[in-house]
């Protein structure tokens, strides 16, 4: 019995290590622009992940980190996808409403 349990535990450990060593599949995250806020305002993602910005407000917004990314004008209901290619912290704003701020950490 003890040997069987050891084997099962070893198998689980090998499976777990295997999973850790392989690169995680890219994920898609969502940032809603709603009520003149980026929600969530702070998002941490991995390199290769996608971040979809969707504007739910009745007025146009954008998401801009000068020189790094620019969503362009997003009318109500429109979306734009940012591909997290590089590691770092990206502090962005809506240039139409500069008090709207958000941060993406790419790790």
């Amino acid at each position, binding site marked *: 019995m003890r040997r069987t349990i050891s084997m099962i535990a070893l198998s689980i450990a090998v499976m777990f290590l295997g999973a850790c060593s392989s690169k995680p599949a890219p994920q898609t995250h969502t940032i809603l622009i709603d009520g003149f806020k980026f929600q969530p305002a702070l998002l941490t993602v991995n390199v290769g992940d996608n971040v979809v910005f969707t504007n739910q407000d*009745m007025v146009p917004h954008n998401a801009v980190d000068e020189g790094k990314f620019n969503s362009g004008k997003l009318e109500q209901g429109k979306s734009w996808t940012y591909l997290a290619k590089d590691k770092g912290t990206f502090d962005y704003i809506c240039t139409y409403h500069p008090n709207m701020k958000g941060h993406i950490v790419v790790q």
Partner: protein
Amino acid sequence: MRLTLRSAVAALALSLCTAAFAQSPSDPQIVGIVVAANQIDMDYAKIALAKSKNQEVRDFAQQMMTDHAAVQKSVFDLGAKLKVKPAPSDTEKSLKDGAAKERATLKKLKGAAFDKAYIDNEVGYHQAVIDAVSKTLIPSAQNAELKQALVSTAPAFQGHLEHAKKVQSDLASGSSSGMSH
């Protein structure tokens, strides 16, 4: 002049609140008040775009044009959907009367004095509208969809207030981009 503007803003806030509190507005009157409030701010913005040479002030004014036009469209769309036509009210009248006086004051100013007066008025105006929407219009609205639309609109006015305060602060510190001539 500063006292006059401050007094005008205070009078506007007072008229918005007292007129609105005196009698709860009906849904058609609420739509009329929101339409008037939007139009008034677009009219202020038109004056700013015609008179100001300060880029930050002009950008703000342009944004007010864009955003209030979008809000206005949504109000008209909702009114049409609900078959609610804008109706006159004392609040709407006091809004329009106050705005006419403010426009006359703004048209007499130029340069940095205009920029300051315009932005100071925007701060006071948006605060007054936020108070009226949250304390009177939302509680008074009978139609659930109209009530929800007012709730959804509130962040736009709050966002504009914060934006206006930023421009006001930049003007006061002299860090505003671009100078009036």
